[in-house]
């Protein structure tokens, strides 16, 4: 699992990458009440909005950690947005991307680097 400074996580399996947000991000958002996942087939560049999560107070974008095409989304989140708070780094994935360039993943933080980054916040 790799991490971004915007608190997304990404896990690569072959050429398919699963994307979610970290436990830290879920805690900061507070109670999630709505999730908007992307359309299958959407092509995103790293840093572009991939999904939207809404807490009681505000809407927040979830950004694509790397380039790719959306091949699957987590439909269950629309009925159970609270999953984002309950199990952010496993069950509450937002989308699976077919990635164009696996090398992009190497530029992201590993768990140790991400936790060191959290300590600076």
């Amino acid at each position, binding site marked *: 699992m790799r991490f971004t400074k915007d608190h997304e996580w990404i896990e690569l399996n072959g050429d398919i990458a699963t994307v979610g947000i970290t436990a830290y991000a879920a805690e900061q958002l*507070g*109670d999630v*009440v*709505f999730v*908007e996942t992307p359309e299958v087939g959407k092509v995103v560049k790293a840093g572009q909005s991939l999904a*939207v999560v*809404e*807490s*009681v*107070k*505000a*809407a927040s974008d979830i950004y694509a950690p790397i380039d790719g095409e959306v091949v699957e989304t987590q439909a269950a989140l629309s009925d159970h947005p609270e999953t984002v708070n309950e199990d952010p780094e496993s069950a509450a994935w937002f989308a699976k991307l077919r990635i164009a360039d696996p090398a992009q993943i190497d530029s992201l933080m590993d768990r140790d680097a991400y936790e060191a980054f959290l300590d600076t916040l």
Partner: protein
Amino acid sequence: MQPEQALLKTPLHSAHAEAKARFTPFAGYDMPVQYADGVLTEHRWAREHAGLFDVSHMGPAVLHLNSPSGDPERDHAAIAAALEQLVPADLQRLKRGRQRYTFLLNANGGIIDDLMVLRPERDDRQDRLFLVVNAGTKPADFALIGQALAGTATLTPLADHALIALQGPEAAAVFAALVPQALDLSFMQGRWFGWESHFLSVTRSGYTGEDGFEIMIDNEAAPALWTRLLEDGRVRPIGLGARDSLRLEAGLPLYGHDLDESISPVEAGLTFALSKRRLAAADFPGAARILGELADGPERVRVGLKVQGAPAREGADIATPDGAVVGRVTSGGFSPTLSQPIALAFVPPALAAPGTRLNAIVRGKPQPAEVVALPFVPHRYARQP
């Protein structure tokens, strides 16, 4: 980069920090937006039990006559007439121990602020009125009132006082354990009570739609009262996040969002706060516009919307089913009680009837939004029998 202005702290700031509050800047104050429970749990707690809110950022003040006669009724009439120059309420006929919700109006009938006015009970206090204005508008309101009434009356901010709100169906039972006589108050009544060695100014009012009290106490004594109330297992602290979702469900407008200097009380759906005597006399700022809107209908009105899909936030466009943009959301979010998004918006009166089907535009996409009667969640005030 601008240097950050130091945020003010209420006397309860360290109590919030100990309760693991998450803070946010609000109207110049470092305020708790939520505690460890989180917004949804806090919201539901206030609806089911009793929530405790630090609202010390708001602006309590006392307005008193410069030259009282000593005749209580004459002095009340004089101080009431002075403040009536700025507001559309009938303060002269306000009874002792009663509170009124009213507005400071500009010359065009726009709302400069909404505020509470309390007439004290005691004979020797009839030369004064107690006001509570909004946090963000406090300096401007105080300057306006002070200047407009200069010579007749003097406004003194009660800056050394904290404000605590206790709200919810169990609030009365909780507060009665400290101040039994507080149960004599009905909704929109207020009085002073002793608690231990302190004076509490207590009104039966609030900003959640629930029964409850708003309590003013000296800064030094505030932490003791806060802690004492939290010792009751029915009470939990509630942050500004749930305060906002509670007032939204109750259909109560928030100044700077649902109310501003361009919006009249008629447009805002607050005509209940316009006194018949004052309307007949047309002797308040902006009376011409307000009477015109009452006769002919305003151009826009505030409505409640139940929204399907993502929450429609402040600034979201409201459109008709054929795509014409006809209004805008001024407050919107998720209703924990109804488990769905709700919003307040301004739309033309022809589209304001409950049942009207509109769309809220969220991230470019139209989502169904149906006009519903306000409040979204029924009020449960302790009204006078």
